[in-house]
């Protein structure tokens, strides 16, 4: 398969692995954060931990959309879904994220009309087919998915639909990275930058990380070879005492990003003054609300939502894992009370969540619950 096989070629990968082993300074400890959950998944899916030197520690970042969604927002979405006149649509990842009264899947089994979609445009189609129902799309994700939500809202407006809305939980990655950099327990040497997000935003938004915090950022693709090459590029920067933003994922990511997508986002969304992130707390200017001019499509204005803030369950240490302070198995609930079938925290739900990836794929876990 083109664009996949050449980036999984065992011989080429073995070559890069040898190069990393030659380059690495055995006297030094490296802590590299992969920001994006897609990278976390790929690292475990392809067993990359097994081929990296022990003194390169990969720290899993906050770039997993369902993982950073606070429980209160799940409750708000499910409150909308509980109405008889509503069809709630969401991505598959959301279906098993627990709210305080259960997951969307459990609510669906009790009779709520909750449907999984692969694109917000599918939600629009459902709205078109069900004129007597209100169809709400539970939007999550970073800049990767925000443009498609924006375009869907613009399409709904152009079609004159009056039974469609979006519950926006879109967030932006840079404020979260800044929050991690400013965190007192921050111990990270460099970042593997998020490939998909950067397709939209371009590389410039990370320049402050190199300039102000002196940390290298290498925007990376998602195949094993991409991630290993990015790590090698980081090693070269660190050893040269440099801190630059580099683009390993040039075949997909233009340095300037995707201007039409950014324009669509700007037309539909505005920054919220602040937004709660699971584990990271409130981060200012880190999330996207629908502009007042498009209030007719904004579920937060159409429906009364509880808006109750819910703390993480006792014992769950999602926040520490999200910030990279703890490894997933160091959480007290990992593998026992919290497992992929009965997730306590969202990091155990999404395939991009550090805990789920670790639980599913990590062979060399000290203990894994039955």
């Amino acid at each position: 398969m083109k664009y996949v096989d050449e980036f999984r070629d065992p011989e080429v990968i073995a070559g890069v692995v040898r190069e990393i082993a030659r380059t690495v300074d055995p006297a030094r400890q490296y802590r590299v954060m992969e920001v994006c959950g897609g990278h976390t998944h790929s690292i475990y899916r392809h067993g990359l931990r097994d081929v990296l030197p022990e003194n390169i520690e990969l720290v899993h970042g906050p770039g997993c959309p369902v993982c950073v969604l606070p429980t209160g927002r799940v409750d708000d979405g499910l409150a909308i879904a509980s109405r008889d006149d509503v069809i709630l649509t969401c991505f598959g990842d959301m279906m098993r994220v627990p709210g305080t009264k259960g997951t969307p899947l459990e609510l669906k089994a009790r009779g709520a009309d909750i449907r999984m979609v692969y694109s917000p445009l599918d939600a629009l189609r459902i709205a078109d087919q069900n004129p007597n129902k209100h169809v709400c799309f539970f939007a999550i994700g970073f800049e990767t998915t925000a443009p498609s939500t924006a375009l869907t809202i613009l399409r709904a407006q152009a079609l004159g639909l009056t039974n469609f809305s979006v519950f926006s939980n879109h967030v932006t990655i840079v404020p979260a990275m800044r929050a991690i950099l400013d965190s007192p327990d921050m111990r990270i040497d460099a970042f593997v930058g998020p490939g998909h997000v950067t397709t939209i935003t371009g590389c410039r938004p990370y320049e402050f990380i190199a300039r102000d915090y002196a940390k290298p950022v290498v925007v990376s693709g998602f195949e094993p070879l991409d991630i290993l090459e990015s790590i090698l590029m980081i090693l070269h920067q660190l050893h040269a005492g440099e801190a630059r933003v580099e683009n390993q994922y040039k075949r997909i990511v233009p340095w300037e990003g995707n201007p039409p997508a950014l324009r669509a986002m700007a037309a539909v969304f505005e920054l919220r003054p602040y937004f709660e992130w699971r584990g990271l707390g409130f981060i200012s200017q880190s999330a996207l609300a629908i502009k007042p001019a498009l209030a007719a499509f904004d579920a937060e204005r159409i429906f009364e939502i509880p808006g109750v803030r819910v703390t993480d369950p006792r014992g769950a240490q999602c926040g520490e894992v999200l910030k990279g302070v703890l490894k997933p198995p160091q959480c007290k609930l990992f593998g026992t009370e919290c497992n992929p079938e009965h997730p306590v925290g969202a990091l155990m739900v999404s395939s991009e969540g550090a805990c789920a990836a670790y639980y599913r794929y990590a062979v060399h876990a000290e203990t894994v619950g039955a």
Partner: protein
Amino acid sequence: MTVVRAARKTPRFADTQIEMAHGAGGTASRRLVEGLIAPYFANPVLQAFTDAAGLSVDGARIATTADGFVVKPLRFPGGSIGELAVNGTLNDLAVSAAKPVALMATLILEEGLPASTLESEIEAMAIAARRAGVPIVGGDTKVVEHGKADGMYVSTFGIGTVDPRATLDPASIRPGDKVLLSGPIGAHGITILLARGELDIQADLVSDTRPVWPFVAALLETCPAGLRWMRDPTRGGVATSLNELVHAGDYGVALFEERIPMHDAVRGACELLGLDPLHIANEGQFIAVVAEEDADAALAAVRAVPGGEGAVLIGEVRAEPRRRVIGVNGYGGTRVIDMLVGDPLPRIC
């Protein structure tokens, strides 16, 4: 580093309601069957949790099995619910080394179902049964109100005689034994997913539904003593079947990821949708564990049967890590391959 995993426990069923995942063939299904249903019926035959129940009747070894079919849509590229209902039950017998003797079928029909749809499914069942040389000797028909079923559901029951040469016994599995797969995986599950038309993906792919008895017969002919275990990896896929095997044993299985055969369309769809092909259902494949010394002969025997050309030795039994299925790739990376969790593709069979 060593891997520690608690010994197999009977899963407790504490769920408060039935959800789609309970029918998906993965961990939730296992919890439902082993935690709620089996304890009430407790008996040694049931508790073996094999694809078919092995009974001894006046000294004769008999295998029986029952299977329900609720696939949506009723017709899909490469097959339909009727054909599936016959092949599925025949295959449960086949992987128990049982040559089928007869089938029975129960039809649950929804009011308003076009008679022509029913007739074409009956015809599909007849053709599939005739192809396998097995008569359908009885059954039952019920009709429910409009809206209470999705067109039609089929349940089949099969009975067969266990081949006297067969010595299937997972307890005989040893480190070094090989895992044989009959052909490319995931075609059925992905075909159904695409046939629903909910995704804007088109692919040149058909269901793999077919009887696997000819391959099993070839194995029984070639290496009856070295044939230790067989399964048809339907719901939950190859990963779930192998996990069920290792959970009950004292060994692990390593799969060589690059060797696992699949069509490009399956691989592409799985990459796109974030699915693991090892979790996707098959309806015409089987996996077998064969003794190391018989592995090459077993592979050659399956490949010699028409339709078996794609068979591959995909992995091996290892002493460590115990009770785990792991994937090993060409550059030394490893990962755990777990059972299916949740319900990626509902109602595939």
